[in-house]
């Protein structure tokens, strides 16, 4: 996580009583090009997990093999607001372009 990201996530989760980890997964939001996204989800037995700054992230092994290490940042500008996920093995040419919210 880039600096400041964990605070944003904790702030978003503060008003909920959700205790589940945050999954990094492949998501398709329409016509061409999947992207990585964050989703509050249950853990599955085969998941890889990582604890960072009090937050637990999970990812399924197949996805991890595909995308590699994932960097999460947060932007808050008029033209771009949300979480930006980039991976060491980019998922597509628009990797890191869009910003998204955490899906529940």
């Amino acid at each position: 996580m880039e600096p400041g990201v964990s605070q944003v996530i904790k702030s978003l989760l503060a008003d909920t009583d959700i205790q589940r980890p945050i999954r990094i997964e492949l998501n398709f939001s329409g016509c061409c090009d999947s992207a990585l996204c964050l989703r509050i989800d249950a853990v599955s037995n085969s998941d890889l997990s990582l604890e960072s700054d009090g937050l637990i992230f999970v990812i399924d092994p197949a996805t991890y093999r595909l995308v590699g290490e994932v960097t999460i940042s947060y932007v808050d500008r008029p033209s771009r607001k949300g979480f930006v996920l980039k991976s060491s093995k980019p998922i597509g040419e628009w990797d890191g372009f869009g910003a998204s919210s955490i899906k529940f």
Partner: protein
Amino acid sequence: MEQYKLFIDGEFVDAASGNTFETIDPGTEAPIATVAQAGKSDAENAIAAARKAFDKGEWSGLTPAARMAKIQDFADQIAQQGLRLATTESMNTGQVISLAKFMPLVSITFLRNLSLAAATKFPWEEEIPVSGNAFAPAREYIRREPIGVCVGIAPWNYPMYIAIWKITPALCMGNTIVLKPASYTPLTAIIMAEAAKAAGIPDGVFNVIAGPGGELGEILCTHPDVDKIAFTGSTEVGRQIMSLASGTVKKVTLELGGKSANIILDDADMDLAVDGATFGNFFHQGQVCSSGSRVLVSSKIYDEFLEKMKKRAESLRVGYQLDPISHMGPLISKQQLATVENYVKIGKDEGAELITGGKRVEATGIKGGYYYAPTIFANVNNKMRIAQEEIFGPVASIIKFDSDEEAVEIANDSIYGLAGGVFSTNTARAERIAHQVRTGTMYINNYHIFSDYCPFGGYKQSGLGREFGLESLHEYTQVKRIHVNSMADAKTNMNFQLLSDYKKVDGFGYNCPTGVVAGHGALASISKAVVDLGCRRALILTDPGVKKAGLAELVKNALADFYVGMYDNIPSDPDLETVDAATAVASELKADCIVSVGGGSVMDTAKGACVTLKSGGKANDHLNFLVLTEPQTPHIAVPTTAGTGSEVTNVAVLTSKSAGRKLFIVDRRIMPDVAILDPRFTMSLPKEMTVSTAMDAMTHAIEAMTSTMANPICDGMALQAIRLINENLPLVVADGKNEKARLNMQIAATMAGWAFTIAQVGLAHGMAHTLGALHHVPHGVACGIVLPKVMRYNVDHSADKLANVAQALGVNTSGMTQHDAALAAADAVEALMKKVGHPMQLREVGVPEENLPICAFHAIADTAVLFNGRPVNDPNEVLQLYTQVY
């Protein structure tokens, strides 16, 4: 291995950085070409080239026909490269060759069809026949002009075809374009650049830069020299593009994701529906944004359909894309394969039932490749992620429904709205459903049909704007309105006068086409009038009083065989419902001509009926100013009063119950075609009505002269009207049977009508309208009572005109100052009123004193007051006038 370069400003160049990337065949995972990888500076160079080319005008300045000719050359060059394009497209995208071989053909026809439409059907210039602004006469027209530099961002599923969707309208409409193909599939775009160069498309008009969207996206979407962006891709990226483009307010069209519902009704042709659902899901491996990936099946046929669709899906051959027997090729990439697998896992985890597929496939004789079996989930709930999120792969979700209403509800329960389908043997039923689904395209008994002239695009988060068709051509132009003032004179410009103390309108247009026939026995001309108007079926409109007096019968006899009926239920102060009733009778009788026999109420009702009969709808639909563009139902007016002048005026005054006041139709096309002034028709008019209607005419004439719109032609009409009234009203009051005097009164009313219909009226009419609306004071009575006071109120602004009025009223003004002569005119009017027994005070006609303040506030808002010679801004002044005549 082949090497492909960027195409910028007419040249094939390496990337500035020297970087390249490989593009692969997804069927074998083997690289097939290297491509120059554009970076930020290459994007800037391409944009600069496009900007220069646009501004130079070499392309944008061509006529649409000349551009069409060049685009035809471009299409021919694509045809020359057809085989290379088809095989390259197939190898690069995984499109089966049986599909890819059509790509050059559909691209060529798209270029030819759209350029033809741009040259022959597109409304580059359009006259606006009525502007909707009554205060600024002008020629109004619009021009549609190119937008400028366009950026086209194409996806990897149909790289050639979707690139053409953007290149074609951009070029047809005179723009220049920078095309960024998807990095997976850049090759056919670059080959098309070769075709463009060979065709002689000018340098810089068409540019291609291949490179990662993540790096190029921001510069393409924020560069100040880019005017428009057309993007096809994911909703997440599209959202970001829209956001970036907003910084410089670029025009954006987006074609994004979909999760379209294909609805299979219980009366569907089963084989057709199974094939339609199969095609809608597995065509091009499901990598189509408009895929019908939610298959909604009626519970009555669910089991049978599922079984047949499973069998049909399992019969599809998944193989290498260049093998002509393959039905489905590979997915585009390992990332896409992983995404599809991920969703299949999600579907299972959510509890959907996997019926078939759900696994990778090996293509016969091929090592590697991203092949996936056609997959069907049954018993899907529309809330599941596999029903809500686009998978973009060969995965169909079958959802059961019970009723048509439930099917529509499920179909609309999506953030997307790109396409959809209905399968049914009942077209009416299918169309009813199609109309209710909120989506940009609905197919009935078909799927995935793209047609050059038929718009394509999404509702909701599926996108903005449309591709294909004239709609797409509009997306690449902008609209400029040109206003050419008809009266280029500062002293005729009512708008400029808002910042001026000069309130008169000097220039004018005079157009009073009514043919007048006047004299003893003039009624006999009516049948010839009907014939000259090209009519054969005349309906008389009249009121009960006129009918009872036998006057309507005279007209009926004069019409002879042209008479088809009579509507005699018109009250004084007619309302919109009266007009609708008269129109209904006219329609039922197939009347082609309206003959109004009566006073202003009847003639105004007739005007309203003529418009409503011609244009349809209800009278309330036509309460407009200056919007009619063609002649209305012919109207012959036979006035039975000498007052309103309605037989020649361009206004119909009608009461609107819902508005609580009188509203108007104003248009020169509602002026009656013929006015027949036969004095027999006013001989039986009672004295009180004779006097009050005469004062209405007098007020028309005097106010026309003192109006801000007064002009010499109308002044002449008005003065003669004033003379005639002054001389003949006492004669008629003394002897109602004085035919010559009666005729002169009719002529006076008509001339006063001509005067005010052009020059307008003023405060006296505003005050009279109010008294009529709030206290039902007859219009002429109200006009007469307030007129002299208003004349004195206006004296400092209209002294010259009122002095002329005084002379017309027989006042000897020699030796008087103009101011005194003007005041003498008001005195003369009062004297005339007393002489003929006209009411002089509002208390005589039952207006309560305590209501005068509200009358003042009402009157000041009347339209007529806008034209008063003296500006009226203070309701207290109006109250004072009402008080003076109370």
